[in-house]
């Protein structure tokens, strides 16, 4: 490893790279959900007449938070990269963690607990849709955890061999 490379290894911020990318991952997943399932496929409904007012209120706040997360994530990521503190492998791990966490949150809290809307209407096997939805989220989470863990371990090794 050259001197410049070892400088790089000392500068990168594993934990911050993970959480900033997780923020962005969750926000992008929320945007994909909005674009694909609400607008293109029109499976999800804007409002399905079975939602309580309290659920509508939490939906409003969550929706607003997702949009702010998207903007904040982009600027936080730009700042990390400007300071050369971005560790790409850790960030990919964080991205999948965030995406998976949002998918499961959406599948469990939004669809089932708040009952904002269901994945699809006029189908007999809604349970199957729910299962696939949440399993996809779990798979994303697992991929994210694995990448994050490996990125952290490799960074630790590189640091120990060059201090």
């Amino acid at each position, binding site marked *: 490893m050259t001197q410049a490379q070892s400088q790089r290894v000392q500068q990168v911020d594993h934990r911050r790279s993970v959480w900033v990318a997780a923020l962005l991952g969750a926000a992008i997943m929320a945007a994909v959900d909005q674009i694909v399932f609400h607008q293109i496929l029109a499976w999800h409904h804007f409002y399905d007449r079975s939602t309580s007012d309290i659920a509508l209120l939490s939906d409003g706040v969550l929706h607003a938070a997702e*949009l702010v997360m998207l903007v904040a994530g982009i600027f936080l990521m730009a700042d990390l990269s400007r300071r050369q503190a971005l560790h790409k492998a850790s960030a990919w791990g964080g991205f999948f963690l965030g995406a998976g966490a949002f998918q499961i949150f959406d599948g469990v809290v939004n669809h089932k607990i708040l009952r904002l809307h269901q994945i699809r209407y006029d189908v007999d096997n809604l349970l199957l849709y729910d299962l696939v939805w949440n399993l996809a989220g779990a798979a994303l989470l697992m991929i994210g955890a694995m990448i994050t863990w490996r990125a952290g371990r490799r960074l630790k090794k590189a640091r120990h061999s060059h201090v």
Partner: protein
Amino acid sequence: MTGWWVPALLGGALIGGYGWALFLRPSTLPKWSLWRTLAWTAGVLAVVIALSPPLVEPAHHDHRYHMAQHLFLGMYAPLGLVLGAPLTLLLGALPRRGQLGLTRLLRSGPVHAVSHPISAAVLNIGGMFVLYLTPLYTISMERQEIHWLVLAHFLLAGYLYTWSIAGPDPAPRRPGMATRVTVLILAAGAHAFLAKFLYANSAQFADGHGHSHSHDEAASMEAAAQWMYYGGDIAEVALAVMLFSWWYRRRKSSQKPASALATASTR
């Protein structure tokens, strides 16, 4: 043609006042950014569109046009006007006594109280709850002078709220990022909630207004509520970009870049 008087006069006054302040600005001060002038012009254009007869006239019976007025006056126009930095421009153009007076006004207690993000958000979004959930909306559709007051409130409260969250103008004692981000999320969340709540209860509201075509009325209200929801998203994202780009620039000037530090230590 009479309907054009108000937007023409107001637009002319806003553009003329800005131009006059630019003319008075001493040449010793740094050159005024063209972007600010363009932003102000775009904001004024949004005000003129919102008050123009093609939107004002149908807004008395069609909720979608009323909502378009709300979006332009209360959300998009303030973004442009705040980015135009009128206070900074005014501070530069005023004579010394005027500068002192304006600074004292900005630092006074009442201005602090209303320009705090929480009070500004309550005035702005809370005003909409009052308008749509009380008979005020029906009254404003029937009585011209109330309608103009509502429109003025949209613009002033929208400007106050936008200024309290972000923008180039001085805002004494503006709280830190955490407070502003929280208020932004809660205010936008309350706005999105109100939109879905109106959508959910559109049939009931339409009956309450006592018009004959309440089915058409409910449909127009549902459409208006969806415009409110998605139109609000656009304004929220724009305001978040204003806020975080300011944070990003300030962070650059407040810390030494890591790369400079690294090259210094390897030498």
